[in-house]
């Protein structure tokens, strides 16, 4: 999966719900259609809920990596409305 070219990265491990999703959403807004954002998030509630919220916004989820340090990285391709 090393072929994923990341355009920007955001770390949401320093915030809690619902700011987790808001921070990811703001980062996605900075991107152009088709660009890829990697989002680092904590295990537990963020990884349970943030991917679904991003799907509901209409973006395309490519992959979820377990960083094996209690965090996960989600790769998202921006889709405009």
């Amino acid at each position: 999966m090393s072929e994923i070219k990341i355009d920007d990265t955001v770390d949401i491990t320093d915030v809690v719900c619902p700011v987790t999703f808001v921070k990811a959403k703001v980062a996605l807004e900075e991107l152009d259609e088709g660009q890829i954002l990697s989002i680092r998030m904590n295990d537990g509630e963020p990884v349970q809920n943030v991917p679904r919220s991003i799907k509901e916004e209409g973006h395309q989820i490519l992959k979820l990596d377990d960083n094996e340090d209690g965090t996960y990285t989600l790769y998202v391709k921006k889709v405009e409305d």
Partner: protein
Amino acid sequence: MADYAALKKGGFMRQKQKNNFSLRIRVVGGHLDAKQLAKVAEVSEKYGEGYVHLTSRQGVEIPFIKLDQIDEVKAALAEGDVVPGVCGPRVRTITACQGSAICPSGCINTYALAEELDERYFGRELPHKFKFGVTGCQNNCLKAEENDVGIKGGIKVAWQEEKCIQCGVCVKACREGAITLEDGKISVDSSKCNFCGRCTKACPTDAYDNTHGYIVSFGGIFGNHINKGKTVIPFIEDHEKLLKVCDAAINFFEKNANAGERLKFTIDRVGEDKFNKEILEAYENE
């Protein structure tokens, strides 16, 4: 002498204050439209004390209605399509959360089901009160298990390998630990799955086939005694079977209950095995 039982049946609840009644409005699934609300407001100002009370089961009551104005109040409410509710030994307000029509978490159309149950059962005379509640998903905002019959929406999932990108989002979305991803294949442990639907709602490629259905609990009560309703059939897919099972529960209650006895205590007295058998028979009969 006023016929208090008749008034109670018609939704007029006797107050401490002599000749004053708190008028219960018929509400289905927690919805009232603007026209109804406007009329309720008008009636509360003209005939009550200018306020309403929202009950614990999504009802609306207009307190301080005077005994000698009851017919006038009923006529006024009817102009706004507002009908009095019921109290006493019969099927009460069918409650519902907003369900899949509005809520992203909803697995079933709770309001449509509440309307259907209301049409089928509301006000039916029984040995004691009988409550239905409909909640859209495992979040259980409507507290299904505190009702005599509680209905909870769920989704049964089946993984579709060809659509899956093995991202692992569903594995983490599942709160029951039912999903594992190994060697590019997803497996769902049906003994752990609680039909919450979080996996399929989170899946980026919609790689799950969804079957929407109902988790039905019986014998819930949340007053002087507290008991959580119990499920007999884990998941009911078919809408007609759901109605048959509801019919069976209410018929069992009508046939077996003593006056003033809630379903939970009828089941305890007559026997859980016997009750479960009647429910299963209704479910299995074509």
